[in-house]
């Protein structure tokens, strides 16, 4: 314990010294930049503000991305080039077909449901008495990691075999309505949807909070004016509220699509990718870190990257258009 303490104290003081040096350097740079006058002033300011970010982006994002693309054309140990072999494998392998189908299913189902329920809750809870209480409760799962949430839901989906009493909530609910408890994680394709519920449970709160903020930002004079014109309920939502929050809705939807594409933790914790529930990110991790096949893993990463890009591009275009309108 003593060794641990001195060890941590040593590390802590190192960190503090590093931060101090960093701050001094930064202050010096800003000081010099502040003194720069005349025609260079703008350029220097640009370099100082953009430079570090550009450097970190380059080292942390651009270089690894290029490296991954190169790796995807190489063998498992990234030594020899193998051409398109890894991509060919991706297209032919029956397991990868399941992986791709599941990933597409995740993208199609999860974002729409999560954002949809989020919007529904945001509208329903808006201007309710003590709306912060139900909102906090719904938002709470957001504080739990996917792994933590998966472990909780493992108990919900638990199945006891060989005639032992069922402890799983789902099995008990099913029995209550006269059904037979099943080994839920083995029932295809239901198991994939059961995993999706975990994602939805965690993320709905996030969608609700963002959309709720957007709804609150709708100017009340517009709402009042439309009320005077006789709009209420569904009409008000369809013609006023939704068009006003459409931008936010799309951003949340896009975030959920990206989240569903990158999804890894739930599948890994619940089924390890077995029983036909595997998804792209989990297969990528397994290839690189379990089977040590850098090539195939990188090819999957590139596939993931390419599928995320259109959504990000759309998001950026959309944001720009909105900005231009203002």
């Amino acid at each position: 314990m003593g060794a641990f303490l001195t060890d941590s104290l040593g590390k802590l003081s190192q960190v503090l010294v590093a931060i101090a040096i960093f701050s001094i350097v930064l202050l010096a740079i800003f000081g010099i930049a502040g003194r720069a006058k005349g025609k260079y002033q703008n350029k220097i300011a640009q370099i100082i503000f953009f430079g570090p970010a550009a450097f970190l982006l380059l080292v942390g994002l651009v270089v690894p991305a290029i490296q991954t693309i190169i790796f995807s054309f190489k063998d498992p140990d990234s030594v020899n080039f193998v051409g398109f072999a890894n991509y060919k494998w991706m297209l032919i392998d029956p397991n990868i077909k399941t992986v791709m189908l599941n990933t597409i299913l995740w993208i199609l189902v999860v974002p729409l449901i999560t954002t949809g329920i989020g919007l529904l809750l945001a509208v329903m809870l808006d201007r309710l008495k003590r709306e912060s209480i139900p909102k906090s409760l719904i938002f709470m799962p957001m504080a739990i990691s996917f792994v933590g949430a998966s472990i909780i839901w493992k108990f919900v989906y638990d199945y006891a075999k060989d005639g032992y009493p069922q402890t799983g909530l789902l099995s008990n609910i099913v029995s209550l309505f006269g059904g037979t408890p099943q080994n839920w994680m083995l029932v295809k394709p239901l198991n994939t949807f059961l995993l999706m519920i975990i994602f939805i449970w965690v993320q709905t709160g996030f969608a609700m909070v963002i959309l709720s903020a957007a709804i609150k930002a709708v100017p009340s004079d517009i709402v009042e004016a439309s009320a005077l014109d006789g709009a209420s309920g569904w009409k008000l939502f369809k013609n006023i509220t939704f068009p006003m929050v459409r931008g936010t809705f799309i951003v949340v939807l896009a975030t959920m699509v990206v989240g569903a594409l990158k999804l890894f933790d739930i599948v890994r914790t619940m089924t390890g990718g077995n029983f036909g529930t595997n998804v792209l990110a989990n297969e990528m991790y397994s290839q690189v870190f379990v089977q040590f096949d850098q090539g195939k893993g990188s090819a999957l990463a590139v596939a993931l990257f390419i599928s995320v890009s259109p959504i990000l591009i759309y998001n950026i275009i959309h944001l720009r258009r909105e900005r231009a309108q203002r």
Partner: protein
Amino acid sequence: MFKSKKGALAIGAVAVSLVATMLTTVSASAAVNCDPYSGYKKMKGKTVTVFTSILEPELTTMKTAMKDFVACTGIKVKIEGSNQFEALLPVRVKGGNAPDLAFLPQPGLLVKMVATGKVVAPPAGTVANVNKYWSKSWKDLGTVKGKFYAAPLGSNMKSLVWYSPKQFKAAGYTVPKTWDEMTTLADKMAADGKIAFCGGLGSGGATGWPATDWVEQIVLREYGAKVYNDWVSHKVKFSDPKIKAAMQKVAGWMQNPKWVGNVKGIATTTFQDAGKGIPTGKCMMLQQASFYGNILGAEGATISSTGDAFAFYLPATNSKVSVPVVGGGEFTTAFAKRPEVQQVQNYLSSATFATSRVQLDHWVSANSGVPLAAYKDPIDRLAAEYLSNSKSTFGFDASDLMPAAVGAGAEWKEFTAWFGEGKSIDDVTKAIDAAWPAS
């Protein structure tokens, strides 16, 4: 499957994707007998870092075993255990942040590490120890392309069947000595309304490995070392009639609903939970490696030949194969050539270390310099008895020796589908053969 699993149990399956890393330091203590360490130089203030898949509480036991060496030589040994060892080690080695020593739980990983060019050959003292105390088959496992790199450290025995002596006594069952006795006993248990065999394949991202063990047991038992090793090197394919027949035999054993109850449930039961019903008689027998005693012990079961749980040797199936034993082990691999690192290597390969380690608890060494009487744990003594038996046919865990794409990939996945989804043996073997790397 590999020894790293053994460490993971202590923590439980919970930490699937959490990187649980523990850092501990072996610190010196006073008043020890330094005579056994007179051959080692004093090197006060030097530190050797060790990276391993061994986790708490075994990490502490490891430190305790090394305490005297540390006190007498002054070398600080910093042991770091991680349940993501196999993923992190290649990253650390490639990133220039390699530990001085690593305990590799499988020879396949050693081949990968040697390929990076960062592995340092052991000093003469270590080579002499290995020649003196270990059989050639063990030395061969630490050899890559004719060059010896890694000394064996611990080993484990997988050819055990866990049972409850108390439950057996209460029901009037006796421990079977032959395969036929075992099947007869299982039938008897089934007739008594009991579940004869427990089983579980769940292990997070490594789900399926217990099934690879079962198939390995039968392949070695039916055909002996030659076919077993040819199977490992893919000279004998999975779709070979021999392997398929062995899998049929496994299906008649661990997929026999009469004996195991719900077959598909085996795929979703974690291997840790699988045998927890043994002490209470919920299920009667579990084929699992020697480390399983730690799990049962943690549940409060007393492990002894008259207690809540104990193990017997999984009987041979073919009289032509003498004392078949499937097992595993880890290998001390060096990434640095400093004298203090080499001293630690020499020490870890000595009978002094092995003896001091087995005296504590749960550890088996195939080091012949360790007297059987030194073993504290009766299961370990049982395992050491078979591992050091000169008549035994030893097979190193095949899935650990096969390329990772198969041994840590297709085999796990396909065997899980075999149990959980009822995939046919033909389809399973075809898929595994297809996943075997071309080169």
